[in-house]
């Protein structure tokens, strides 16, 4: 059912855990549907220096979260922002049709975390430091 790559990322997920003081956080999904992903980013000079995740979900949900952090680490945010679920699926050597939505969730988690970072930065730029 799952490729070796999926099983590997599920079994030994990379970059798992909650990040202290992240620069951006994206939370997507919903426990009713059975998948929740939280993506944490550390960003310096528009480069993603570190990425971590926490996921409640099936094997595919955990594997896509893991591979997504790998894919974006070290990348400029404008590149990471263009991550597609297709790229996630390819990096995992495929996903079963019923699990494709997990790759979409991973894409959304990355985008939402970057958005959060940009929102915070804009707020930080536009307002005096003490209001942050």
């Amino acid at each position, binding site marked *: 059912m799952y490729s070796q790559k999926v099983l590997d990322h599920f079994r030994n997920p990379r970059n798992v855990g909650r990040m202290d003081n992240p620069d951006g956080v994206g939370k997507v999904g919903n426990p*009713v549907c059975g998948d929740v992903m939280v993506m944490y980013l550390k960003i310096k000079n528009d480069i993603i220096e570190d990425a971590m995740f926490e996921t409640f979900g099936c*094997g595919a949900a955990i594997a896509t979260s893991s591979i997504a952090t790998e894919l974006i680490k070290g990348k400029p945010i404008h590149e990471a922002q263009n991550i597609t679920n297709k790229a996630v699926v390819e990096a995992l050597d495929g996903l079963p049709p*019923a699990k494709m939505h997990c790759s979409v969730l991973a894409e959304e988690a990355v985008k939402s975390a970057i958005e959060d970072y940009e929102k915070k930065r804009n707020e930080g730029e536009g307002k005096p430091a003490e209001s942050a």
Partner: protein
Amino acid sequence: MIYLDHNATTPADPRVVKKMLPYFSEKYGNPSSVHSFGQEARAAIEEARHHIATLMHCHEKEIIFTSGGTEANNLAIRGTLEATKKKGRHLVTSSIEHHAVLNVFKRLEKEGYEVTFLPVNSDGRIEIQTLAEALRPDTVLVSVMTANNESGVMEPIEEIGFLLHERGILFHTDAVQAVGKIPLDCSSLPIDLLSASAHKFGGPKGAGFVYCRKNIRINPQIVGGHHEKGRRAGTENVPCIIGMGKAAEIAHQEINKEVFRIGALRDKLEEGILKSIPEVRIVSKNVLRLYNTSLVLVKYVEGEAMLLNLDFEGIEVSSGSACTSGSLEPSHVLLACGYPHEDAHGSIRFSLGKTNTEEEINTVLEVFPRVVEKLRKMSPFKAQSLT
């Protein structure tokens, strides 16, 4: 490997396979053939029918062979509806049936029947009062399973049957998870139709049967030759039917031996889990359940993720029902019992069988808490934080 997925399928008992073996390449005759070589195969499947009739306390003529439990459910329900003289367009079933029953009723609904899908209480049981209120003058057939495949909960089929027979309504029960595990006596139970599947009780995949009470008319769903007295066409699956017969014979002799041993192992497993893992619960723990089944809800983690991690450690279990895999829906059984979606996603089913040992249970009790801990560490939800 520690196999704890016996409700999905069981290994064929070696005695079963031994009995089947000569019928592939040696005594391979077609039971419909008139020559003695064909009649030898005929005699063997009639012997199998005898063993099944003995197990079920019924007459040989009341047994119709099928290719499995799903076909048995389709035949029992559709076949009698087509043949019954009592006209009426209302049917009743429960909301926790296996898809092999649910989808038969959904199809019948499309064809114009009205179907009531009965709710269950929080224990997962049909309440007789609820059923009684659902019945109508034009109710022709009710189907309620004997034991649920996910939770193991036993439905009150005896009370249901008596109520229905008072009103002249046909009663079918999907006993796929019960036959061979617990004694069922068709001579005293108020059941008209019952479905079973060999591979759930030590027989091979590819054989099942319908018990169809004498004088209940049933139309074949697969038509062709005059096999099974015109109730199911197609060359009989001789080896698998013989295997099912042997499995029935073994079950009849050994049922009592296994109940207590397996039940004790299951109880040990449940106690261990409750003791070592916080925020878990056993579904319908205090209700009459199959002695081999344990459905565990683990908060903050998802079922498949637990299943796969157990699989990595050589422990084979199921999350919800194996037969619905590929579906993203959480178990319809848990939802029907009133569990919220987020809890229903976190279910793991352990189902034990003959070959399981205490040592294996000890291993599971060592591995499972570790798996849950690992996954909870990855989870964005922590104790008391799930909303």
